[in-house]
């Protein structure tokens, strides 16, 4: 069964209104804030996007070598063994008004899909594993992010502030592009 590509699409005009002008560096910063909050809530608070506990690990998994080496005596699930899945979350698409978050690596995407769907379609685990939908933020959190970035969005909309900020941000955006091209070079 082909694993669907997971996407979390955020409409920035819904968050900031029609005033949002699509400044790339602001979108990158907002996207990273969303990623950070999902990762932190999952790994540290150990709850899904609705605030429900992710549950506890099975004894058989706790007895495995991989678990003992990386997690020791931890009991409650946080979807983190090596951190590779949560560490792979990234902005995968940007338009003028939206950013989309996903998992660029197909293996990490498959892991995430497994957790979210309860391993639907898996030949052994389908129907046997709890669904753990961690991939998203409640509306309250999105509004909190909007408040946090409102000043920046307002500043970008003013012509003088926008041009000076663009000059400051252009170099950092080039740096992001360069490191990203290294990742894509390896994948390719």
């Amino acid at each position, binding site marked *: 069964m082909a694993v669907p590509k997971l996407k979390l699409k955020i409409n920035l005009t819904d968050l900031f209104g029609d005033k949002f002008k699509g400044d790339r560096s602001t979108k990158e910063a907002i*996207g990273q804030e969303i990623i950070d909050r999902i990762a932190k809530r999952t790994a540290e608070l150990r709850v899904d996007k609705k605030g429900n506990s992710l549950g506890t690990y099975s004894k058989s998994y706790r007895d495995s*070598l991989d678990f*003992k080496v990386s997690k020791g005596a931890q009991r409650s699930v946080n979807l983190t063994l090596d951190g590779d899945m949560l560490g*792979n979350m*990234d902005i995968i698409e940007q338009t003028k008004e939206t950013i989309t978050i996903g998992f660029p690596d197909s293996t990490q995407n498959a892991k995430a899909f497994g957790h979210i769907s309860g391993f639907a379609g898996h030949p052994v685990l389908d129907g046997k594993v709890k669904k753990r939908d961690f991939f998203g933020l409640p509306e309250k959190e999105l509004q909190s992010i909007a408040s946090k970035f409102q000043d920046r969005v307002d500043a970008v909309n003013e012509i003088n502030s926008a041009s000076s900020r663009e000059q400051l941000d252009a170099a950092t955006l080039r740096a992001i592009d360069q*490191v990203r091209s290294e990742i894509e070079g390896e994948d390719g």
Partner: protein
Amino acid sequence: MAKAKVQINQSLANLKMTLSAGISSGGLLSEIAEFCRSRIYQYTKRGQSLVQESKLQALSTGYIEYRKRLTRAKKSRSSKKTRQSGVFPSKGFGAFFSPSRSNLTLTGQLLEALKSRVKKSSNQIEVFVENSSRSDSDLTNKEVAEKVSSDGRPFIGLDRVGRDRVRRLVIAQLRRSFKRR
């Protein structure tokens, strides 16, 4: 800040990473250094080589038998005598030792000597095995690391996913820097 680059160099017993000028946060360098050290340690203990991206080469049958004898000697009542005879490792077994498990662990000294450091002046991080002495050999831990690596069990390095993680850590830090202006 004109460019950013994450350059990774691996040798037998050393992993060096240079983050080009512009990514100069000491906190980020420390985070990356510890991430690399911890990843190498955990994967090796789990029996995986990050360099080869596969399981570590299996132990020979003869060596497994030797390790089983050591395990039995430890359990026997004459273990003190056995230790004194030099058959049994005086330090005991390392964490996650098992006679037939190939995870570069007998006494645990090698992997406990795995360290990381940050050279902030040159924007570098390094993961290496300390050149420290061992209780059971005239070789140092660094020499043992080089030997096991050249003998078919290279373990100091980063897999593709690990390299990807480091680069995403850098991108995340660059994005967070936008907020502060």
